[in-house]
């Protein structure tokens, strides 16, 4: 084929290519430098965020790592012996608190998501209000939930007093929108053919939802619950308002007596002037970060293990 092209034509083509190339290349280097610089700027934006994460972890490890010992978990707080003070009541308080949160958010979150995604008629005004409302609640500052807890749960209608149960309810309400939104997404990811198939075979709507859709969406919903729990563990601001007293030297009881929680206790230790207490606070942060890392890994594993592309 190549030989059949007349020499003049091929020469013309080569010249044209060279000319185009020279023009294009000149423009190209400038654009290329600009492009590379732009890319570097973008990457540095990501880099700063990543550096922040690693610096926070590094701070906790460097400052608090030396202080991690059994006493940190087993000892009661002390205001004058920072070397022996520990997080025992705070850790027990957080465990009870999270237990209560799970008991509340799992049934409520999954029911609400199931209704909104599978049963709600979106043309009805009340369903639209519920949706808008959940979106809005997700953006309400956590401290406002603390005020709600103080006015309605600690005092007011529920009148529970400053107990773990009140903290659980407050934090559960706070993370509920997250659970609902994540569960809805999990349900939405299940193809409608599953539901339609079950209905076509004569299943009732409830049977189809219970036996086909919900099991398929379960891993996604579980991931949502786990991430909500992770958020609940680190939440300090609303607990300050619903009475996670910062200094408790006894094991908490769910329904009565004062309690503390890990992030609140950390905050309280950090506020003391002695250097040793700051180390103790960093050690507490380290414990919290390890727990969160573990929980997040479970969520990632679940997602990877059960993720299905339909």
């Amino acid at each position, binding site marked *: 084929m190549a030989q059949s092209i007349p020499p003049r034509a091929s020469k013309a083509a080569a010249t044209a290519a060279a000319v185009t190339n020279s023009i294009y290349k000149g423009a190209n280097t400038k654009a290329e430098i600009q492009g590379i610089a*732009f890319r570097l700027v973008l990457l540095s934006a990501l880099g700063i965020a990543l550096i922040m994460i690693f610096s926070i972890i590094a701070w906790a490890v460097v400052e608090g790592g030396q202080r991690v010992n059994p006493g940190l978990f087993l000892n009661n707080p002390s205001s004058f012996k920072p070397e022996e003070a520990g997080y025992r009541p705070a850790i027990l308080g957080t465990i009870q608190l999270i237990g209560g949160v799970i008991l509340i958010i799992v049934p409520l979150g999954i029911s609400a*998501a199931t209704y909104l995604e599978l049963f709600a008629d979106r043309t009805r005004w009340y369903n639209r209000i519920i949706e808008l409302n959940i979106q809005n*609640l997700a953006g309400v500052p956590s401290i406002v939930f603390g005020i709600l807890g103080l006015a309605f749960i600690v005092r007011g209608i529920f009148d529970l007093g400053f107990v773990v149960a009140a903290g659980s309810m407050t934090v559960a309400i706070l993370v509920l929108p997250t659970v609902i939104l994540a569960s809805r997404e999990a349900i939405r990811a299940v193809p409608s053919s599953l539901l339609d198939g079950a209905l076509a075979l004569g299943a*009732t709507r*409830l049977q189809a939802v219970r036996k086909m859709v919900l099991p398929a969406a379960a891993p996604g919903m579980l991931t949502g619950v786990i991430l909500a729990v992770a958020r609940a563990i680190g939440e300090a601001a609303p607990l300050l308002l619903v009475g996670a007293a910062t200094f408790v030297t006894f094991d908490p009881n769910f329904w009565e007596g004062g309690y503390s929680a890990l*992030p609140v206790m950390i905050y309280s230790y950090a506020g003391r002037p002695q250097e040793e207490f700051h180390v103790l606070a960093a050690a507490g942060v380290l414990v919290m970060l390890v727990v969160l890392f573990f929980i997040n890994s479970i969520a990632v594993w679940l997602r990877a293990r059960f993720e299905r592309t339909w």
Partner: protein
Amino acid sequence: MSSSIQGARSRSEKNSLRAPSPRIGEKIVISLLFIASAISVGVTIAIVISLFAPLPGFFDYVSPWEFLTGTLWAPSFLDSSFGVLPLVAGTLQVVFYALLIGIPLGLGAAIYLSEYASTRVRKTIKPILEVLEGLPTVATGLFAVFWFKPLIQELTPWLEWTSPFSIGVAGITVGIIIIPLIASVSDDAMRSVPVALREGAYALGASKMRVAVKVVLPAAISGIVASFVLGASRAIGETMVVLLVAGGGSPQLKIGFTEPAGAMTAFIASRATGEIATGTIDYYSIFAVGALLFLMTLTMNMIAIFFVSKFREVYD
């Protein structure tokens, strides 16, 4: 004749697609599910009641005008004063510095994720970014107090670092926390811009950078604005970082990077830790500040939801 109509009717009833039983159980279950989702509305109503019901009691003591325009916030002074402006100024300064950092960095990260990164890179980086957002704010705040603030102090020796607290450092820290939020909402908006728009620009000879900045960015602007508004709303509501880094605040109106300044959230958190007596003016002031905070974030969230729904409408 009438009998034949009745016959037809009974036949059609027999063959109808209606369920043979009224399915009362199903209706009960569905209404229970409905109630579960309606609880969220109940929560909002409860929030509004708990914030606004104590207000008349508060405004008996302080006039709304004095509350909104006063420049001295001293609830625990003997001669107490309830002008909320110092707290609002603290919050707005946090928002200002947070957006100053969060907008360029968040948007930069979003452009990289949506226009440059391969699917694999995006799938790795996005969850890592979410870690930053999910870190307990106590941890971030303490890091900022013990490491980050000294670092900034070293880097800016020309500033007057007289106080252990700094509203500017608090704002910058919050700004870094909101990078993932701004990045992920903007990234979603930019990725919903149709590929055809990009390809059209490439066909006209535009470079990748031009496509990103001149085509994708303007096309996704409503979602990007929404991400900024959400970031601002998150910055307004951030409590622990501001409380730890900027302190409970001073009663006077103070503006400046190195000043200790109380924000609204920090005031609520610091005030409520003590056993505060119900019914005192001190107690009411928590609710008054909370109500103002709630109104501010509610407005911003509504604006953000409006902008998000706008870009969804255009391209979905």
